[in-house]
């Protein structure tokens, strides 16, 4: 028997939703693919004798969820791989699948890092900043002996600092944006001095460690035979078009590269939620009303998966979604719901300006579409090269659906989750249009690797 409320994702948004609902007596299940609650931002170290101490806020949220164990059931290492008829969720855990049928569903899946295709990007040793952070922070493992961190956005500095603190040799941080947006931060950031101070602290620490932070520079290619050996980087203009005449080659056996974040919307899509194109928060996001309800009855979304805005916004959104679900389930009357949501809405309004400033820094610029050559792999799962996609675009295929049929792009295990945001930009550049017109990737269950045997045993017909 499923509990009335199901929350997919146990990061700050998901945990906050469960807590808010539990405070009004609502019993919920929180499922998360990770080894423990916390999401990416509050990920807990797994190695007892290594890694960094866990984030304090993450520990607090985990402790509060644990204290309400009678109302909040937590299922770890549990992957939601499909959503059917609105809010029936297929879940895989320990090699077995089952269907959960809650009356209310909160989706809090978080975001993934945006890595556009570039030559050599599939070489072992090239990874997202998040992957490098997980290695060093939760396991005390160095991603390489000589590491370059590249891309855009404040997350790069945080990761570079964590690497340095762990004794990893960071050769450089390459930030594609010019210095100017950084200087703009203090003005818009004064309302949340915590975030600003953190940024300054990162820069000071990197300076102290002798790690150069170079602005208006971008990685344009990676080289190596079977593994990364060398990268090429070049200065870029305001639109991030590289000046190839001034390319520099640099040795590196690990390249941590990412250009901001993209909301994970696969589950919302399978639930039937309508999406809208909001490039300022990462691309396609579920359409929501002011209480975070999607266009599907009984389904809410909260946190970065509904538009990238960081952990503080995720917590407030999670609480709001949890309250809205509790209200729907009859555990909270309209007057109490109104009283409790008012301060959350006010807080979300206060957090908006700092987010806009941070977004302006990492928002991908059109020059990112100028890195591919004919042979560049644009879809990692299916080994699809740019020349195949380009030829299909020239032949008139300009949407996800038509390109998938013509080239297999986005057809692999990740179902376009990793590649499509980048390919859509390439298609937009080739057609002089917007990534919006290429449409979102459209996932089909199962969106996680589930064996045929497990599917057959579960009796869930996707």
């Amino acid at each position, binding site marked *: 028997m499923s509990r009335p409320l199901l929350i997919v994702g146990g990061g700050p948004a998901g945990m906050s939703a469960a807590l808010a609902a539990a405070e009004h007596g609502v019993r919920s299940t929180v499922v998360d*693919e990770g080894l423990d609650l916390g999401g990416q931002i509050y990920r807990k170290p*797994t190695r007892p004798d290594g890694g960094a101490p866990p984030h304090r806020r993450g520990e607090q949220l985990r402790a509060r969820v644990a204290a309400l164990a009678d109302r909040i059931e937590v299922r770890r290492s549990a992957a939601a791989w499909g959503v059917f008829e609105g809010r029936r969720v297929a879940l895989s855990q320990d090699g077995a699948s089952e269907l959960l049928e809650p009356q209310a569903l909160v989706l809090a899946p978080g975001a993934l890092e945006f890595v556009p295709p570039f030559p050599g990007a599939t070489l072992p040793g090239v990874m997202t900043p998040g992957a490098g952070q997980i290695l060093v922070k939760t*396991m005390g*493992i160095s991603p390489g002996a000589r590491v370059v961190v590249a891309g855009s956005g404040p997350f790069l500095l945080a990761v570079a600092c964590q690497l340095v603190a762990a004794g990893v040799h960071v050769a450089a941080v390459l930030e594609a944006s010019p210095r100017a947006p950084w200087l703009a931060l203090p003005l818009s950031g004064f309302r949340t001095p915590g975030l600003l101070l953190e940024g300054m602290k990162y820069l000071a620490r990197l300076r102290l460690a002798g790690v150069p932070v170079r602005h208006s520079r971008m990685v344009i290619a990676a080289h190596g035979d079977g593994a990364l050996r060398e990268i090429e980087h070049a200065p870029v203009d305001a639109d991030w078009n590289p000046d190839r005449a001034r390319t520099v080659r640099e040795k590196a056996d690990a390249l941590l590269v990412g250009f901001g974040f993209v909301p994970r919307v696969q589950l919302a899509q399978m639930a039937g939620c309508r999406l809208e194109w909001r490039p300022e928060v990462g691309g396609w996001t579920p359409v929501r009303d002011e209480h975070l309800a999607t266009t599907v009855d009984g389904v809410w979304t909260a946190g970065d998966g509904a538009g990238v805005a960081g952990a503080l916004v995720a917590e407030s959104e999670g609480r709001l979604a949890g309250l809205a679900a509790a209200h729907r389930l009859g555990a909270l009357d309209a007057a109490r719901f109104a009283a409790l949501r008012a301060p959350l809405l006010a807080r979300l309004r206060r957090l908006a300006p700092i987010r806009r400033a941070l977004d302006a820094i990492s928002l991908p610029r059109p020059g990112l579409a100028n890195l591919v050559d004919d042979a560049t792999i644009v879809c*990692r799962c299916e080994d699809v090269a740019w020349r195949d996609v380009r030829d299909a675009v020239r032949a008139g295929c300009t949407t996800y659906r038509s390109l998938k049929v013509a080239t297999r792009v986005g057809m692999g*295990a990740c179902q376009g989750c990793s590649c499509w945001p980048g390919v859509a930009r390439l298609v937009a550049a080739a057609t002089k249009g917007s990534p919006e017109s290429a449409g979102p990737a459209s996932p089909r269950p199962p969106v996680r690797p589930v064996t045929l045997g497990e599917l057959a045993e579960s009796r869930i017909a996707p």
Partner: protein
Amino acid sequence: MDDVEFQLNGEAVRCPAGLTIAGALFHLRRTTTRTTRLHAPRTLFCGMGICCECVMEVDGRASVRTCMTLVRPGMRVDAQRGDAELSEAS
């Protein structure tokens, strides 16, 4: 302390406790988890279970995401080749 022993591609190897399989591969400086249909080597990329670049065969089960799975003593971990993951996974 490298105190967990497991089988990697048929060879006994050791790593500290509390590592994911992907973490253990980096610890061992052996990074390839799978090869693609064009025989290109791949390994950990997103680190959080989305990209499926780091899938391997674990204790006979195909397409296990090694970034989401902790090493257990005696575990059998094998590289996946070509389209192996597709035959079982989808």
